[in-house]
């Protein structure tokens, strides 16, 4: 009953609120080399809009790379030196919009929005200025200069597949034993709970690792997706995420009695959030606050952040340690709850 009536409500709410390609409250950084009255005005105007939130100010070009790697900001606005002087004497000044194009759609939208705001601004100042002043914007796309969508969907698809194969298949395979009655015989045997679970989970670890490797190889060779980061770090993070998904699958199997329930729980409970709330397709920063908070408990969100950082930005563990730790924590939590919930008896 809950599934019949609860799901449509949840879905329409999710789709209505979360699924939007508009951007909202995108974090950006400012590199203001001029720091004059004009740049100040422009910065104010940008931060006054609902689209952008100025997250930090940086002081030199070297920092751009590091703020992107940390994933704190989606774009950096760079004002050139002597901005106000250039505007008044040369009648034109330059702003550089550097976007993190690991998510091509968002990157595109951001640069369009910034352009629009700047144009609007020049219109205002040109009312009493003849000849017209010009602010030139120059867009630079980091990590994905060609705005290839493959850069988003390879990590996304990888996340979905790993989640599905690991969580759904384990939960189904364990509940299958319950349904067929073989669990009853296994319980009345010297096998310990963890032996049963490890036995069920083991094949899926291999399957998932092979899946992950195939997706990455296809992305690399067929679609030309870069693998900037350390391959071992990549493998480590993938195995970590597989473990998280497996432990989630075990958790699902401990609370469901039939294969059907397990499948419903995995499909509805995992698939939708992974697709919608993980930031794979729809930017999390544009979602309502409530959904943004909810997105934090979705393991896929953290894995997508990690894998994009490693794949496209060549991030190392010192940048993504926080996300990695979150995944480790989730895994430990799922396993702990599963052990607590695992029934050594039939009821």
């Amino acid at each position, binding site marked *: 009953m809950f599934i019949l009536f609860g799901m449509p409500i949840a879905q329409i709410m999710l789709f209505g609120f979360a699924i939007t390609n508009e951007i909202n409250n995108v974090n950006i950084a400012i590199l203001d080399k001029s720091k004059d009255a004009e740049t100040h005005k422009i910065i104010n105007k940008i931060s006054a809009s609902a689209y952008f939130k100025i997250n930090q100010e940086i002081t030199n070009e070297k920092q751009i790379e590091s703020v992107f790697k940390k994933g704190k900001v989606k774009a950096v606005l760079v004002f050139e030196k002597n901005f106000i002087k250039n505007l008044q004497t040369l009648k034109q000044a330059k702003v550089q919009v550097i976007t993190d194009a690991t998510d091509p759609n968002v990157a595109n939208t951001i640069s369009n929005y910034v352009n629009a705001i700047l144009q609007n601004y020049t219109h205002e100042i040109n009312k009493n200025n003849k000849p017209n002043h010009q602010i030139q914007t120059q867009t630079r796309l980091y990590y994905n200069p060609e705005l290839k969508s493959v850069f988003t969907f390879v990590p996304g698809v990888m996340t979905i597949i790993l989640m599905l194969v690991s969580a759904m298949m384990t939960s189904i395979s364990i509940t299958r034993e319950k349904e067929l009655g073989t669990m009853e015989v296994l319980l009345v045997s010297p096998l310990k709970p963890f032996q049963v679970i490890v036995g069920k989970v083991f094949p899926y670890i291999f399957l998932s690792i092979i899946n992950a490797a195939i997706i990455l190889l296809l992305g690399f060779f067929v679609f030309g997706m870069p693998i900037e980061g350390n391959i071992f770090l990549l493998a480590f993070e993938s195995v970590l995420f597989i473990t998280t998904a497996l432990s989630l699958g075990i958790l699902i199997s401990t609370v469901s009695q039939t294969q059907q329930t397990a499948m419903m729980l995995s499909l509805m409970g995992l698939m939708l959030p992974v697709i919608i709330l993980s930031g794979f397709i729809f930017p999390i920063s544009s979602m309502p606050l409530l959904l943004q908070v909810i997105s934090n408990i979705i393991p896929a969100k953290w894995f997508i952040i990690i894998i994009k950082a490693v794949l496209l930005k060549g991030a190392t563990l010192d940048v993504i340690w926080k996300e990695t730790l979150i995944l480790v924590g989730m895994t430990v939590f799922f396993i702990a709850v599963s052990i607590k919930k695992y029934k050594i008896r039939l*009821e």
Partner: protein
Amino acid sequence: MSIIVQNISKSYNKIKAIDAISFEVKEGELFGLIGPDGAGKTTIFRTLTTLLLANEGSATVAGFDVVKDYVAIRNSVGYMPGKFSLYQDLTVEENLKFFATIFGTTIEENYDLIKDIYIQIEPFKTRRAGALSGGMKQKLALCCALIHAPKVLFLDEPTTGVDPVSRKEFWEMLKRLQKKGITILVSTPYMDEAVLCDRIALIQKGSILKIDSPENIIKKYDKVIYNIKAKNRHQLILDLKKYPSQYSVFAFGEFIHYIDNSSTFNSIDLQHYLEKQNNTEIEIKIGNTTIEDVFMDL
């Protein structure tokens, strides 16, 4: 004592499945739980195999407490659930190997014990367990439950859904296993299998009605049962039920089992009465008491 059950009660959502059940099974005994579907037989099995926790009472199996020492019990008993519970997509041999492995033994080690049974299914050892006939499945399940040479064997309705010939074979095997010193607790809804046990407990609606050897149960039954036959069965039953001194009337195979409660009962009087009611081809004779008669009377 191999199994001691004391005042075990178990309820599912306020519905009592078993109510203050007590019985004991001696070492090397073949003990039968006899009762219709829903009598609580499976609940007793699951409690004793540590799969369910009783609400009240205590029980020990092979000297181990079913709650405290559940690990020890799981190591030393063989359990064959009422529902076929082997891996359907594994072959006969693979199933046996699997169960030998999880009990830390090998097929060869205890082959003696299962030899008689396994020989019968060996021709099909490469067939998937799901594709076996009902009787074969039960034989395989018995092999799997025996492969670790358990001290106590729990068989929950092993012959349900099995043809009469295989049923007979199955019971012969149990007799042989018993001779090897294994305590066997078996349940069945078939009354005719009850006489094959050393002792039986008659169960209905979660309570034990009687515990004794089948012979004693029949011997102690003091009423005389008449097997009565007539052309029109339905009419016969109705008329018998109207007979003033009738105690019980129920259909049993081709006969009607009739019990009278009068000490001056005379079958000729009954014959006259039935003839008067227009019954034809009447046949009245004294029948042998069966477990089912006793059960129906309880």
